[in-house]
C-alpha cells in the first residue's frame, strides 16, 4: 500500500488573527495591529519579512502583502502600516474603510524576501514614503544585537512622513529625514562613496527610487551582493485574456482588474504563490504554447527567459494575443 503524497497548499501557512488596534498615522497611512485569535504567541520573524493579509471584500478574496513593522521579537502583536492608494486595486482602501478593531482575519506566517545580511559591518537603509515599514522592524532587530545602522528617509512632507518623528527622536544620530516639499533630497552619490568597507545598502520605496539607488551603487563600484532592494509590483489592470490550463483541462478568462493568479484562485486552481508581487519566484509557471505577446511585470525572471516566452509569473504578468496555454 502506498500513501499518496499530500499536496502542500499554495502560499505560506495561515494564522487566524483579530485586529487589536487601528491607528491613523497620517492622512494616507493607517497602522493595523493583530493578535492571535487562539491567544498563543506569534512566531518571531526577521526584519524585512512580510505577511500576506487575506481580505474578504464582499465575496472577493484579496491577498495583499505588507511588511511587518513590529519588533521581530514581539510574539504578542504583529503590526503593519497600510498606505491608502485611491487609484489602486482596492486592497488598501478596503483595509482603511472596512477593517476595524475586533475584526477577525487571516494572515500568513512571515516570509522574508528582504532580509538583513548580518555579515555587514554597517547597514545603510534608504526609504521612500511607505517603504519605511521594513526598516522599522530591521532597526529594532539590529538595536537588540548592537548592529550598526543608519537611515536616510525621503518623505513628501513632514505631515506625511510616517514614523519620521518617532524614529528621529529615538535615534537622533542615525536617522536623516528629507522633506520633498522643502526641496530636500538624499545626496546619494556622496553618501555611497563615504561608506566604510563592508557596508550593505537596503532600499525600499517607489520603483524609480530603487532603480536610482541600484544604478548609482553600480556606478560607484558597489558589489551586487551589497545592494538589497524590495519592490512589490502591484498587479496592473489590462485587457481581459483567455488562458488554457492544460493540467486542469479547462479554459478561463482573466478579467481586466484581476491578475492571472487571482483568476486561477477564483476558479479553484491551487496555484503556488508567496509574495504576490513578482519578487519571490514561487508562482513561476511554464508556458506550453502561445500566440501573442507577454506583458512581463515581475523582477524574478531573467530578461532572456522573459524573451523566450517559456515562463510567466501569474501574480503580476499578463498576456495580449490570440491564445495562451500554461502548465496549471
Amino acid at each position, binding site marked *: 500500500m502506498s500513501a499518496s503524497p499530500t499536496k502542500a497548499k499554495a502560499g505560506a501557512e495561515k494564522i487566524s488573527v483579530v485586529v487589536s488596534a487601528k491607528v491613523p498615522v497620517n492622512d494616507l497611512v493607517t497602522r493595523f495591529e493583530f493578535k492571535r485569535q487562539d491567544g498563543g504567541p506569534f512566531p518571531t520573524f526577521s526584519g524585512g519579512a512580510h505577511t500576506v493579509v487575506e481580505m474578504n471584500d464582499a465575496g472577493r478574496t484579496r491577498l495583499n502583502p505588507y511588511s511587518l513593522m513590529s519588533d521581530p521579537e514581539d510574539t504578542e502583536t504583529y503590526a503593519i502600516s497600510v498606505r491608502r492608494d485611491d487609484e489602486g486595486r482596492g486592497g488598501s482602501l478596503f483595509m482603511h474603510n472596512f477593517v476595524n478593531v475586533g475584526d477577525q482575519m487571516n494572515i500568513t506566517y512571515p516570509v522574508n524576501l528582504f532580509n538583513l545580511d548580518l555579515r555587514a559591518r554597517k547597514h545603510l537603509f534608504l526609504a521612500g514614503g511607505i517603504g519605511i515599514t521594513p526598516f522599522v522592524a530591521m532597526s529594532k532587530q539590529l538595536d537588540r544585537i548592537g548592529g550598526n545602522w543608519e537611515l536616510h528617509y525621503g518623505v513628501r512632507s513632514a505631515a506625511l512622513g510616517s514614523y519620521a518623528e518617532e524614529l528621529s527622536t529615538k535615534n537622533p544620530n542615525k536617522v536623516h529625514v528629507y522633506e520633498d516639499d522643502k526641496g530636500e533630497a538624499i545626496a546619494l552619490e556622496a553618501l555611497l562613496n563615504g*561608506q566604510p568597507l563592508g557596508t550593505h545598502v537596503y532600499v525600499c520605496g517607489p520603483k524609480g527610487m530603487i532603480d536610482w539607488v541600484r544604478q548609482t551603487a553600480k556606478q560607484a563600484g558597489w558589489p551586487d551582493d551589497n545592494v538589497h532592494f524590495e519592490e512589490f509590483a502591484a498587479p496592473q489592470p489590462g485587457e481581459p485574456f483567455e488562458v488554457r490550463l492544460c493540467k486542469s483541462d479547462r479554459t478561463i478568462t482573466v478579467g481586466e482588474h484581476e491578475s492571472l493568479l487571482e483568476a486561477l484562485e477564483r476558479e479553484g486552481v491551487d496555484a503556488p504563490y508567496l509574495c504576490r508581487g513578482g519578487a519571490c519566484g514561487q508562482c513561476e509557471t511554464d508556458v506550453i504554447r502561445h500566440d501573442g505577446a507577454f506583458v512581463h511585470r515581475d523582477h524574478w525572471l531573467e530578461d532572456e527567459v522573459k524573451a523566450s516566452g517559456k515562463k510567466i509569473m501569474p501574480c503580476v504578468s499578463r498576456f495580449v494575443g490570440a491564445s495562451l496555454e500554461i502548465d496549471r
Partner: protein
Amino acid sequence: MSKFQFPESIMSRPVYGTLEPRLGHAHLFVADAEGAEAILDLAKKDPGLMSSAHIIFIPRATGETYVEQLKALRPAQFYSGPSYEAALPRLRRVFSDASMGLQVYLSGTEGLMGQAQSEAMQAGIAPAAIQTEHRGSVARRMQCVHCKGITEDVMTDPFVCSHCGLNLFVRDHYSRRLAAYQGVCIDAEDPGNVPDPVELYS
C-alpha cells in the same frame, strides 16, 4: 607563459579568473612575481583606471623584470617590496582608510592571493567581490594539520613539514581564513612508508 590551467577539483579548492576593469573610485592591486603580467594586461583594457590605482608588488624571483613596466603604467601609488610580510602593514593601512567603491585585484601565486584575500575579508570585503588571477608558480602555501605550522612554497607531494618534520600529503582542501591548503601526515599508520615526492602538476 605565466598562465596555468588548474584541473577541476573539489569545491574547497579556489578557482581563479581573469582580472577585468571594474567601476569604482579606487583600485587596489596586490601582485607577486608574474602576477605583474595580469596587471599589465588589465591596464591595456582600461588605461584610465591607473590614475586611481595603488599597486603593491612583491617581485620575488622576478627581480627587476616587471618593476619599470608597472611604474610606466603611472599608477597613483606604487610600492615594491621584498615580501608579503613586509607589505602587510601598508596593505592594512590601505584597507583601514578605504571606503565602499574600492576594487581589489589580486594576481600571482596562490599563497599571495590567498593571504591578501583573507586580509580583505577581515576588512569587510566579501570574497565574491574580490578579483583574482593566477600567474606564475603553482607552489602552495600549506598548513600542517598536526602542528598548525605553515610551510610556504611547497612544490612537491608529499613534503616535509618545516615545523614538526612530519611527512605531509598535499590536499586540495583549502582554508580561506588561513589562506592555506591542508597537509596531512601520509605515514601515520606505517611510519617511514613514504612515497617518493612528485612535483605538483608534473
